[in-house]
């Protein structure tokens, strides 16, 4: 294996080898999985009602808190806590849609966007108010441990492995729902043309609700996994990941599910590389730089097809 290292021959200026590069990729993919799960919700909601759901990052935060209380107060394990958080977030997502967004279906875009910002702030600060601003320490429910990869000095921890596996399972499940069930077919129909779908007898309101529920459940799962991974959660934890996940969705092509997944992973790896080889202080700035670059060169995103604007 030492020879394999030489074969790769990737050394950085401080004489540190391939190990670190691989470690950074692993770190990046773990973070990217979280972004991917959040980005999926953004992209589905945008695809179906053309709304940037700013509150999505907060649903992820609430998911982390639900998981926290499920584990600490109810003494549940990781998987039950994950499922409870997903269900709780699905309900919350539907409630937000019914209370805040549905009355505004016919309003101007800016009115809906302002509402979304309002909902997002509301969730943040009611949480601050009731659960206090300071971070909660997420209990350790997964055993500490790590695997050595290919005999290199790079490790993958059990937590990271759990994040990968859960993310991939959820994405496969989502693809199944969207492509092989009746509901999924209806979702695609509504996304394609809402009015035509209504005329064809699809209950668009129900489909929109279901879309919010599924997207929110994914964010809830991401929240619990972040709690496990970073061991601390706080009421404002949703802001930055929410924004970056949105950029990830745009990067992949907004409204496109595989795009959101890939976009999330790419964002995670880019961030890890910026922290690992550049300056971590500019990590957040890079995310937005990516957004600007996409807008200049390919506004439809990596997977997007250019489409003429409908009049």
């Amino acid at each position, binding site marked *: 294996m030492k020879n394999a290292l030489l074969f790769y021959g990737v050394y950085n200026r*401080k004489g*540190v080898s391939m*190990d*670190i590069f691989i*470690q*950074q990729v692993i*770190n*990046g993919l773990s*973070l990217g999985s979280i972004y991917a799960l959040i980005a999926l919700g953004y992209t589905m909601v945008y695809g179906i009602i053309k709304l940037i759901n700013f509150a999505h990052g907060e649903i992820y935060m609430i998911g982390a808190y639900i998981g926290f209380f499920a584990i600490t107060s109810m003494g549940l394990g990781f998987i039950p806590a994950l499922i409870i958080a997903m269900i709780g977030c699905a309900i919350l997502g539907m409630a937000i849609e019914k209370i805040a967004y549905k009355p505004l279906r016919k309003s101007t875009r800016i009115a809906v966007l302002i509402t979304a910002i309002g909902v997002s702030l509301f969730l943040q600060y009611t949480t601050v108010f009731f659960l206090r*601003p*300071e*971070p909660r*320490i997420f209990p350790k429910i997964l055993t*500490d441990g*790590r695997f050595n990869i290919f005999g290199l*000095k790079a*490790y993958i*921890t059990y937590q990271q492995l759990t994040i990968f596996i859960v993310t991939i399972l959820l994405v496969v499940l989502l693809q199944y729902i969207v492509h092989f069930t009746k509901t999924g077919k209806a979702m695609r129909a509504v996304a394609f043309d809402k009015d035509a779908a209504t005329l064809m007898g699809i209950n668009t309101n129900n489909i929109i609700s279901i879309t919010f529920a599924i997207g929110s459940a994914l964010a809830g799962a991401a929240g619990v996994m*972040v709690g496990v991974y*970073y*061991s*601390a959660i706080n009421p404002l*934890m949703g802001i*930055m990941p929410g924004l970056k996940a949105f950029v990830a969705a745009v990067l992949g092509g907004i409204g496109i599910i595989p795009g959101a997944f890939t976009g999330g992973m790419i964002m995670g790896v880019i*961030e*890890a*590389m910026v*922290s*690992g*080889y550049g*300056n*971590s*202080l500019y990590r*957040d700035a890079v995310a937005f730089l990516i957004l600007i670059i996409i807008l200049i060169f390919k506004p439809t995103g990596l997977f997007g097809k250019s489409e003429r604007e409908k009049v």
Partner: protein
Amino acid sequence: MKNKKFIAGLVTILFAVTMIAGCGGGTPDPTPSETPDSVKVGVNLELSGNVAQFGQAVANAVEMAFEEINAAGGANGIMLEPVLYDNRSDNAESLNVATRLASQDNVPVIIGPVTSSNTLAAIPVSEQFEVSVVTPTGTATAVTVDDRTGETRPFMFRTCFIDPFQGEVAAQFAAQNLEATTASIYVDNNSDYSKGLEASFQSAFEGFGGEIVSVEGFVIEDRDFRSTLTRMIGNNPDVIFIPAYEEQVALIISQARELGYEGALVGTDGWDGPRLPEVNSPENLQNAYFTNHYTSESDDPKVVEFVNNYRDAYGSTPTALAALGYDAAYVVADAIARAGSGDKIAIRDAIASTSGFVGVTGTVTLDEQHNPVKSAVILGFDDEGRQTYVTTVDPN
């Protein structure tokens, strides 16, 4: 025509609004009598925002101190009335609160804020209104000394040791007790406190013949330090010095250990609090040390009494910040007692001449730059993750 209607509306609104905003102000300063029955003491603390837990600890201790002082008959017969406002951990709010205390409540002296940045924001108010500001915990040198002119700020005081001293102590401990020759520094780029310590640790450590192999930064919102830590650990430092607050440090330690780092971790008083053992297993905390103002394990009767009273009142062990807040309140009370009045200048002079005051964090004597000369303790962790006393370092 439309334009004029508009201007009419505009002007009327501006007028009405300014009247509303303006009313209620303007009670003239009451002339301080010779020996007043009571004196108001302003308290400007971070009760909400990102360092709320520190502000809260200091607020508790200050409140407790004032209750004790008043129950014992006040400061030389003068009752102390604390007036507490929240500065939301924000510079502009800190200035706003200080202005409010100085101009509305007419306090002669303000305790707080906790952080150096927020304390720096209160400097203009101290000079404009000649109100003394005593920070219990603002450790940056610029708080009491203008770094452009080198002059001591007339109304700024502190009751904790300054950053350079703490950084030197940490460097001395790393170089001599831990026999480290290489060190990496991981700095919180959002805080003066952290940056000040970085500089003093670096020069002191190099003075002991050590080498700083890398300096990395993070920001306060960070939760994932793995990428930077991976790079840092790649340089194999003997010691990683993390001058930061417990919130981030707890995660940094856990992630560094997860990435396989087994060397020493050294930190400063920001590490004090419940977070480190909450996030980390005791094994993670072995070979981790930090400098602090006091230890709650001390058998000094004054400390024992303080720790017990605080536990009874608030149900938790007082952190060093709480102890410093407690001492700051007593230093102010001591000064008011010696001044014998609520007069701003008399109180200022009395604070400046504080000497040999025995508090829970040691003996406070303010030097010409309004900084106390105190010793520091080094704490570590036992096999159950509890803080243990390691050694004391005196100022040279």
